[in-house]
């Protein structure tokens, strides 16, 4: 349910509607909109978060080797992405590269994480927005149509009509919903084989892993992976059927969640034969990653260099509850290649929280800052989004055309995934083509293709790892010393998109540490230029396709858009059932001196 308040603005009937917190996501996110019901359009959208974490504050002064253990606790679903990213940053600072086998083990753990997390989010949370029960409530006409729409890929997934698929999406009872829960268990077991524990890994260290690399370890992983392939092979064509149906049945649905194509991907899965963690070589080893880093502006791949990506990072304020740090200490003037590092770069950020009342009308309204990427060509500070993770990863990898493995191959305009014969289904090839739009449907569609991508990569990594073990190359950890003074940066893909960790070491301790996960990019509020963040931008101006009128409005199209980004603002999820005039700016920051009014 949403809260609503009616305002008569001239002749237009504008209604304020809000969802706070948004449910079926991780964390505390509020979406505040103004909707023009006569013209069935969202006029304005603001995205707020009422939770402050403070990792960058309390990391100061700690032993840098603890960073991976501590930052894992940022997130209760993708903590391992943080540990991995932190270890990448530390390895740069310490000048150490893990042995090849250690790197393959991390890749295997992360591949399992993508498979697990994307599936549980897609099938158990996103699909609730597309399930029969929901569509019946919001678009009965559409459901009627789905009952008679034959599923084009019925022979592959076994559901005759689109409505049959929608019924299988129904929470707790639907077949796909239940199967996905089982799948996410098996993939998490794969994860635990490599990283010890889900979600805070026990066996990852800067310098490598402590996982015991016997053939048994990889057999146990491979057996589970092969069991998962049937599910993946049915999921991809089934997702395609549902999403294509929405395009076909609701003319103009591609406009839902549509925004300018501004995508960022920071790359995933290191290639141990190339990576040396030296900043000077970062562009080269970044391009060797098995998911290619890249920034896409209006469909054009602007760069694949992690150095360009790093140098262009800017953390802006404008609507966030923090003091500016322009006059604070500058930790890094130039990177090791001599590029100037801005005061607004994470290496130089000083986080000074300033709790205050939420002011959605021209004031500050979120604990999220506004990360942007500075485009040297135009001087713009681009509000990149991650497309929920998979959309940007596939897009950058496809255009770069660098990934070439037996199971996954980038072509320059697409990504091909080839999965071998499994228990029930024969060998199958899927191809993800660069879509026409960066919108809600394509964000969701990319997710299932990336599950196939991760499965293919996992097969490749198992083969590489077993080859090392059989050759007797079983070293998984490389020792190192912590230097007194050093800097480091790690780039990785959290499940839902870009992840960076920036580290400054002084006197052998952490002097500055700033993790930038995907959601600060996606959920960011308006910056001081007035540029809205991606959620705001994607929802704003979007058409309403819901059949319900103002009275029973569920906001399904808006929720589909927000959830397509796979929001993750730890933590605390419950549903707020508001009625009437709750938009009187009563309070917002939940904690702090002015918080509890």
């Amino acid at each position: 349910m949403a809260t609503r308040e009616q305002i008569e603005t001239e002749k237009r009937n504008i209604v304020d509607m809000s969802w706070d917190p948004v449910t079926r996501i991780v964390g505390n996110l509020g979406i505040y909109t103004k909707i023009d019901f006569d013209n069935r359009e969202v006029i304005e959208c603001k995205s707020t978060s009422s939770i402050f974490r403070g990792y960058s504050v309390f990391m100061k002064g700690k032993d840098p080797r603890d960073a991976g253990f501590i930052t894992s606790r940022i997130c209760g679903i993708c903590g391992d992405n943080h540990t991995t990213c932190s270890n990448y940053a530390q390895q740069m600072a310490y000048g150490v590269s893990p042995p090849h086998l250690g790197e393959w083990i991390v890749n295997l753990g992360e591949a399992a994480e993508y498979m697990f997390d994307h599936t549980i989010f897609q099938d158990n949370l996103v699909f609730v927005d597309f399930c029969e029960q929901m569509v019946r409530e919001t678009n009965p006409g559409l459901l009627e149509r789905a009952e008679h729409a034959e599923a084009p890929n019925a022979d592959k997934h076994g559901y005759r009509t689109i409505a049959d698929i929608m019924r299988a999406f129904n929470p707790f009872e639907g077949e796909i919903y239940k199967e996905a829960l089982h799948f996410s268990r098996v993939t998490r077991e794969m994860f635990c084989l490599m990283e010890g524990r889900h979600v805070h890994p026990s066996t990852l260290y800067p310098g490598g892993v402590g996982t015991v690399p016997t053939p048994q370890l990889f057999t146990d992983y491979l057996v589970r992976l092969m069991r998962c392939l049937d599910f993946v092979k049915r999921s991809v064509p089934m997702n395609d059927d549902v999403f294509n149906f929405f395009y076909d049945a609701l003319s103009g649905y591609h406009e839902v969640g549509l925004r300018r194509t501004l995508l960022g991907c920071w790359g995933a899965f290191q290639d141990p034969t190339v990576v040396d963690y030296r900043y000077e070589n970062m562009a080269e080893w970044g391009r060797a990653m098995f998911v290619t880093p890249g920034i896409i502006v209006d469909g054009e791949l602007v760069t694949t260099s992690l150095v360009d990506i790093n140098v262009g990072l800017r953390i802006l304020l404008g609507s966030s509850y923090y003091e500016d740090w322009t006059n604070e200490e500058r930790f890094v003037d130039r990177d090791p290649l001599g590029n100037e590092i801005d005061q607004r770069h994470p290496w130089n950020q000083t986080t000074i929280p300033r709790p205050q009342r939420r002011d959605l009308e021209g004031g500050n309204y979120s604990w999220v800052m506004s990360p942007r990427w500075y485009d040297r060509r135009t001087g713009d500070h681009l509000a990149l989004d991650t497309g929920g993770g998979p959309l940007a990863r596939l897009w950058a990898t496809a255009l770069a055309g660098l990934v070439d493995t037996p199971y996954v191959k980038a072509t320059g305009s697409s990504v091909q995934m080839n999965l071998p014969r499994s228990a029930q289904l024969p060998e199958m090839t899927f191809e993800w083509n660069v879509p026409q739009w960066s919108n809600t449907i394509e964000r969701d569609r990319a997710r299932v293709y990336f599950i196939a991508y991760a499965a293919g990569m996992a097969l490749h990594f198992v083969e590489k790892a077993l080859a090392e073990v059989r050759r007797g190359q079983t070293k998984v950890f490389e020792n190192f010393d912590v230097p007194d003074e050093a800097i480091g940066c790690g780039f990785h893909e959290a499940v839902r998109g870009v992840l960076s960790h920036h580290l400054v070491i002084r006197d052998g301790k952490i002097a500055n540490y700033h993790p930038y996960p995907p959601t600060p990019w996606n959920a960011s509020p308006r910056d001081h230029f007035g540029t809205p963040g991606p959620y705001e931008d994607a929802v704003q101006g979007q058409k309403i396709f819901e059949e319900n009128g103002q009275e029973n409005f569920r906001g399904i199209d808006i929720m589909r858009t927000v959830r397509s980004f796979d929001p993750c603002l730890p933590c605390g999820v419950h549903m707020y059932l508001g009625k009437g005039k709750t938009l009187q700016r009563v309070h917002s920051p939940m904690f702090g001196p002015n918080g509890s009014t």
Partner: protein
Amino acid sequence: MNVPGCPVQPDNFMETLLWLLYQAAGLAPVIPLDEKLRPQWLFGKTVHEGCDRAGYYEQGDFAHDYNSPKCLVKVGCWGPVVNCNVTKRGWMDGIGGCPNVGGICIACTMPGFPDKFMPFMDEPPGASLSGALIKSPYGPFIRLMRSHTNKTANKEPKWRHNRAELTTGYDPRWSSGGD
């Protein structure tokens, strides 16, 4: 009551919840808790007591870095003094865990976690004394003796060979005075 862990081992949590539901329905007696209000059957033993690497500790045989499958106490494991059952239970369906699979115990079930136990990758302060005691001469001596016995245990018995003669002592009839 408390079911500690960062994160909580999922089966520990559900099992405790289930007991409480039975208790609430009057179908089970009061849940047995320790003085920190933790379920006794889950947190009554230490990580070390359930760890399959504890045998290395007993023999004074320690890992010097994370490549080793031996006891991790010298490289940061807090297992000997931490109440937790994960080494016994694994992380899910018996898979994964902490020191048993190569991850130091960072004491995530204990009051004061994490600050009290940092920096994680250094030897815990108390471990150097107990480690030194076990290392000389008790642990190495036990290890030496066991390795001798282990060699004998790995030998085929003398009566099993490829020679033509039968030396198993086979004798189908009772012979009281036999050799």
